[in-house]
């Protein structure tokens, strides 16, 4: 692994000078044969990879309107070129969204368009050579699928869609990435991304009950597989023991306890994350989502609530209805069964922030803001929540609801610089299946823009806590903050703040 070097923070962020091939060494470990086979992909690069890749590309062009439109519509205007945090942090021109797309667009032109067949040089059409395939593997694994570029493109071209297609093609020819594919196999085998088996989970939850009892004196429960509970909570498995994630889990439990809502976790679906999204594979995403429907039916719950996880919320909010009929209108027998079981006075699925905020508005919780007075808090919008999902009923609810919730539990709240929050938020640098240590250098560099705006509010306004509602953001920040001279405990969940402020037992 190359040395990890954090770039210097810039006072006036400007696009960096181009540094061709600056990140040409960066790539994640390749998935082993066993891992590939476990999720139905060839184990190593297949003999006829070229033809297979082109055929798969043709198939995807027929299946996804996004891909076919996006590969045609780009005018090379460059509006997206300085929008990617990986480009801003590395200067590698292939990390400009348009250049990243062009790695695939060149091949598309060559094989699927008339001018590309007739005058390849003129239109930038290229053959898919072994070198280019290498570039695909490298640079499509240097995109966190954060969609920041799509906000600024005049045609809404979303590089994440191209990245997903590229990863799917790479997987079909036997060139998958270890981190994502290993996790997908684990979720199928054990039920969660971390490979935490049922008994271990039970143990952990019992431990948490004891901890909370000790701290608050209240009998806050962390139920598992409880049939007939009202709420099924689906949360990232990192919440079960990683720091600071677990503090949010404690927060959710306290909220349910204080509001008197019966709830449960499920061993069968003990994971909110859905890495099928990251490799662009619809079937994987669907299979992983179906576990949740199965758990909900099995436990007979009335509501499905999703914990603090960015891409999980995207999949839940935007895709669960499509993939598994969780929402309204699913029409296979199981989906119909689920519809009649769920309580449609509530949004299905609900984000934990929506649930808690509703309770706050109804006055159902006793909150002591002063308990958070040692904190000056800012909020980091996570990409998949900000640019790919919603909360509440109004467009932009995904920005307002978490902020409103934070403001209801802290006295001192500060916004980071405009242009780095809301839909223009910068990725933490570790999303999209890149949260793996062999590419730590990329992750550190990709965090640069976020670190710059954090530095600003830390220096000028004394911010010492950055709240976020994504497990990947939390894991990534705790790892990279020290490289920029921050304390790793500066980052935490919104429900961590709720957990500090909430007073138990005062109200029923």
């Amino acid at each position, binding site marked *: 692994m190359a040395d990890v070097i954090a770039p210097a923070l810039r006072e006036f962020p400007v696009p960096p000078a*181009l540094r061709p091939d600056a990140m040409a060494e960066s790539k994640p470990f390749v998935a082993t044969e066993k891992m590939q086979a476990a999720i139905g992909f060839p184990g190593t690069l297949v003999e006829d990879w070229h033809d297979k890749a082109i055929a798969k590309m043709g198939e995807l*062009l*027929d*299946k*996804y*309107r*996004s891909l*076919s*439109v996006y590969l*045609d*519509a*780009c*005018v*090379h*205007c*460059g509006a*997206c*070129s300085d929008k990617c945090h990986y480009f801003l942090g590395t200067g590698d*021109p292939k990390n*400009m969204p*348009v250049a990243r797309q*062009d790695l695939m667009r060149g091949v598309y032109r060559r094989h699927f368009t008339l*001018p590309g067949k007739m005058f390849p*040089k*003129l*239109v*930038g059409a290229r053959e898919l050579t072994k070198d280019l395939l290498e570039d695909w593997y490298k640079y499509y694994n240097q995109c966190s699928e954060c*969609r920041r570029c*799509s906000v*600024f*493109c*005049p*045609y*809404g*071209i*979303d590089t994440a*869609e191209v990245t997903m297609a590229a990863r799917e093609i790479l997987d079909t020819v036997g060139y998958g990435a270890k981190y994502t594919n290993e996790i997908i196999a684990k979720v199928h085998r054990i039920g969660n991304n971390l490979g935490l088996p049922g008994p271990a989970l039970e143990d952990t939850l019992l431990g948490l009950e004891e901890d909370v009892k000790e701290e608050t004196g209240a009998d806050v429960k962390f139920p598992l597989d409880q049939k007939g509970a009202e709420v099924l909570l689906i949360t990232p498995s990192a919440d079960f023991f990683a720091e600071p994630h677990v503090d949010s889990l404690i927060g959710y439990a306290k909220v349910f306890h204080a509001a008197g809502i019966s709830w449960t976790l499920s061993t069968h679906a003990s994971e909110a994350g859905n890495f099928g999204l990251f490799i662009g594979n*619809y*079937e994987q995403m*669907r299979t992983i989502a179906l576990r949740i429907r199965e758990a909900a039916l099995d436990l007979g719950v009335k509501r499905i609530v999703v914990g603090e996880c960015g891409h999980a919320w995207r999949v839940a909010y*935007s*895709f669960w*209805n*499509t993939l598994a009929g969780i*929402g*309204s*209108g*699913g*029409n296979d027998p199981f989906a119909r069964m689920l519809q009649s079981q769920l309580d449609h006075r509530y949004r299905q699925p609900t984000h934990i922030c929506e649930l808690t905020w509703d309770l706050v508005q109804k006055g159902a919780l006793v909150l002591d803001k002063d308990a958070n007075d040692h904190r000056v808090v800012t909020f980091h919008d996570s990409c998949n929540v*900000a*640019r*790919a*999902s*919603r909360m509440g*009923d*109004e*467009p*932009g609810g995904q*920005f307002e609801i978490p902020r409103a919730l934070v403001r209801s539990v802290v006295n001192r709240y500060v916004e980071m610089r405009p242009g780095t929050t809301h*839909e223009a938020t910068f990725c933490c640098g570790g999303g999209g299946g890149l949260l793996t240590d062999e590419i730590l250098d990329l992750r550190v560099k990709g965090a640069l823009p976020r670190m710059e705006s954090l530095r600003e509010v830390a220096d000028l306004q004394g911010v010492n806590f950055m709240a976020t509602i994504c497990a990947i953001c939390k894991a990534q920040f705790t790892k990279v903050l020290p490289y920029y001279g921050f304390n790793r405990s500066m980052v935490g969940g919104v429900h961590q703040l709720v957990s500090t402020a909430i007073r138990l037992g005062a109200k029923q």
Partner: protein
Amino acid sequence: MAAILAGLFYAAATVLVAGLAWRIRQYAGTPAPLKIPTTPAPTTSAGVALRLAREVVLFESLFKASLWTWLFGWTFHAGLALVLARHLRYFTDPVWGWVAFIQPFGVYAGFAMVAGLAGLWARRFLVDRVRYISTPSDHLMLALLIAIAGSGLAMKYLAHTDIVAVKSFFLGLLVFQVRELPADPALAVHLGLVATLMIVFPYSKLLHAPGLFFSPGRNQVDNPREHRHLAEWAARLETK
């Protein structure tokens, strides 16, 4: 020459219309299996129409992204729209009132077009990021557009063309008659290049025009919890 240009225009018009129709059918026929609007997105179809209208008329996203690109791009496109409208007078008899009204502005618009294009082209040389992503066809497209605008302006300011004859030529084309055309180099260049542009349209990055309307990131309603969204190929997985 009139016969050659007439043939060229019929061919170009056929390629343009058939090519675009084919592409649009292809886009429309390709499923969008997942809801992927870039949020914050409108929650109603009317909201989506408004969002698209803002993109088409104001270049809203580009405005947020890069002021210079927006300024040049918008100037060029607005100029082009006016110039195209102005050219309606060659195809209508009598000329519609509003077309007559905009004639003087149409001329300024021609200069605005050239200025916008020059700005866009300058970016391709001066901004290293944009230079890096430019292909020969990007430059050629700008050259083609500038040549079209330049030859058009030349006919207005340098060597006047007999526009009455030009109009009669085009009115003739509309009823499948080949009439005389002034033997004028600027005119021949102008018309030849316009026909070229029409021919490359359905195969080039000019597809960004229809593309915008089919971009799922921009044209989808944000209502996945309320309405199920299922593509045909995805629905087939359910019966397995």
